[in-house]
């Protein structure tokens, strides 16, 4: 019997720990950004403001669907997503951000209705194996990748939101038919599929593939682990869908109530400290979006990058059609 009492005490302690009451000053963030990339930013925020942050990590689309499902009941205060599509998908659940926040970032990197704002920028690139190819051998347009020359040599991550954003950009810039054809041709060319961006870059590093379609910053993540890896980024020609410049962004949920802590968090992400994180502290190297903070040395300046002329605000409404196309062409089951 004494054992039973002891066990019961342990259980209760455990349940109490598991439910974790916490103080009133907490903020719940649904983060579609990976823990290994952004966890330090949350710590910096708590150190500075004393506000505890509970973070639920997941894929951006998963969290968007979760927010839609939860509706009024959502425990989330802030949704921080990897792509504009996921943010756009739940724009009905997001409240308008204050003008003070919106003014911090150029117009092309935020929602036209002011419901979400970009927090860091990224460019689509081709990562390539430098032992197999020199930079001038790497195609300048994604449309060259369907050439038989690249058969079996290309890697992509079709379930990843960043790849899907790129496909949306191609649809908006070139039309559905051209995009469908490109996807089918790429499949004909024995493109290799990976779960996420990092494995694509790692595959390029070991020569499993020669070219990979990824966001520019994953290169730095892999180089952190393997400094000698023979890989480099190639930025594509201006206007090419493969040169899409997109953002990770955040919005405040309407269910968050007064939302002042939530806005404080977004302000922090856009503060000099929050923006310099990408330049100085992070293992990866995204682009800061706030004026006056330079990107990491070695990166082409953000202004010099020119993707296809598409409006990031339309990525949300277009997302479903992109998924449908990816299913139709066999990239998603």
């Amino acid at each position, binding site marked *: 019997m004494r054992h039973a009492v002891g066990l019961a005490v342990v*259980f209760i302690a455990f349940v109490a*720990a*598991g439910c974790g009451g916490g103080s009133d000053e907490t903020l719940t963030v649904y983060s579609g950004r990976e823990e290994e990339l952004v966890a330090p930013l949350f710590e910096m925020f708590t150190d500075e403001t004393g506000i505890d942050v509970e973070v639920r990590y997941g894929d951006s689309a998963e969290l968007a669907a979760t927010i839609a*499902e939860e*509706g009024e*009941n959502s425990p989330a205060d802030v949704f921080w997503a990897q792509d504009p599509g*996921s943010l756009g998908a739940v724009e009905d659940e997001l409240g308008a951000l204050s003008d003070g926040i919106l003014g911090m970032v150029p117009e092309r990197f935020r929602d036209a209705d002011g419901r979400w704002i970009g927090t860091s920028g990224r460019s689509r690139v081709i990562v390539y194996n430098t032992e197999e190819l020199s930079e001038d051998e790497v195609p300048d347009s994604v449309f060259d990748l369907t050439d038989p020359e690249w058969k079996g040599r290309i890697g992509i991550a079709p379930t990843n939101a960043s790849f899907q954003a790129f496909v949306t950009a191609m649809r908006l810039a070139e039309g559905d038919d051209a995009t469908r054809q490109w996807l089918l041709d790429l499949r004909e060319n024995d493109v290799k599929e990976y779960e996420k961006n990092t494995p694509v870059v790692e595959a390029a590093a070991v*020569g499993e593939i020669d070219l990979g379609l990824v966001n520019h910053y994953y290169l730095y993540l892999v180089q952190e682990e393997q400094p000698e890896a023979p890989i480099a980024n190639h930025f594509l020609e201006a206007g090419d869908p493969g040169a899409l410049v997109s953002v990770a962004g955040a919005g405040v949920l309407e269910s968050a109530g007064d939302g002042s802590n939530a806005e404080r968090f977004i302000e922090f992400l856009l503060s000099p400290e929050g923006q310099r994180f990408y330049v100085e502290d992070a293992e990866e190297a995204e682009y800061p979006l706030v004026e006056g903070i330079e990107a990491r040395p070695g990166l082409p300046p953000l202004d010099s990058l020119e993707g296809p002329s598409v409006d990031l605000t339309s990525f949300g409404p277009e997302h479903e059609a992109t998924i449908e196309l990816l299913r139709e062409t066999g990239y998603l*089951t």
Partner: protein
Amino acid sequence: MTRGAVRAPLPLVLSAGLVVALLLLPLAYLVVRVAGSGRALEILGEVSTWRLVLNTVLLAAGVVLSSVLVAVPLAWLVTRTDLPARRLWATAGALPLVIPSYVAAFCLLGFFGERGLLSDALGIERLPEVRGYWGSLIALTLATYPYVFLLTQTALRSLDPSLDEAARGLGISGGRAFWRVTAPALRPAVGLGALLVALYTFSDFGVVSLMDYDTLTRSIYVQYKSLFDRAPAATLALLLVALTAGVLVLEYRARQRGRLYRTGPGTQRPQPLVALGRWAAPAIGFCAMVVGLFLVLPAGVLGYWLARGLVNERDFAMPWGETFNSLGASALAGAVAVLAALPIAVLALRHPSPSSRLLERLSYAGNALPGLVIALSLVFFAARYASVVYQTLALLVFAYVVRFFPQALAGVESALERVSPRYEEAARSLGRGPVQTFSRVTVPLVRTGVLAGAALVFLSAMKELPATLLLRPIGFETLATEIWKLTQVGAYSQAAVPALILILSSAPVLYLISSAHRFESGTPG
């Protein structure tokens, strides 16, 4: 007075009914959800859907076949022949039981894969890939053949040698006697094993994801993660339930046909052992191959990574918090499961009636519900209608209980079966009330069996991956989710520490279960 005539007390019936209603909740809500989406027919009409079904069935068939091919000969060798070191092979052959299938998968990937240990050791860049169908097949065979092995061993031990002798007496040769007499007698055990293997494969999520093989579970998860629309994931989940239920029905039908009992009176004689003679060497080779691939290889890989981590120290961190969370959530699940199983077991065994039997049958629903399916349904349900428990430990534990309830019920029922109702009747006639009788007489008598049931649930919950991934509260990492996270970024060697803790922490519980079993069945341990 017959036992059936005792009317079940109302509180007992009510609590059993409540438990069953809760157990059926995930399935019921999934049906409602799919019906409400209006897209089910469209999704069922797609070719890709049926390709997933085919992939799933092909994998299950392959794993069943390879498990039987590995387990039955191994079981025969260690029970019926003069194989050298039989007990050692028997133990080593059953040990892969403690290795979670996804751990097996990442060990195989870390060993055979690109930049894996083998290609490092051989200095070869590219080896034939152990991924996709074949990779999944090997990892799942490792995880499942021990079930067939243990069941077949038990069946072989209880075979009456007189059957075999009678066949030979009728002039049938040894080899043919095996096929005519022994093999049919093994059929129920092997069949049950095959069923367990098929169910395991249908519900597996970790292996097929790591190995990159598209089955229903993997696709459900990918669609859940990457689509804003949840109708496809829900529809596929229901399809998976239908498939699982189909297999359960098939097995049930097969079991109805022919059984073999020992009919003669008296105790059974020990069986004579078959002398292997010149076949001894190939037999040892076979055993060594099985044990080498399914036990030594994963253990070696994990051990190597652990050693390397200890030397480098850079990647080495003890996952204390995760261990605590895993142990706590699983222990809760075990305790809640047996508590919930008690009213149903008492009702079914002490007050048998068509309705109590129906309640008991229904409570086995967890067998047909893969963890991912339960989790998916509960995520949907709680987000909308039960925000109090949403993203809490309670919901996670509830999912474990639904999933593993049959194990708890089997444990409680088998213990209760062995307690004669005469004891309870005696207590009642001496003036004890029903509650007192239950707590003072019944509970102490069934304690060991109940503990074994709780321990089984505990073990399964420790290893459970998909439900934990979907339902854990914010910031609540377990050993399983930690392993998953690390393997997702390819950090196999860092996953070795949580994997080893998971394996080692289940070993003592397994030992307890087997000793409880020996104690109850009265054979000397």
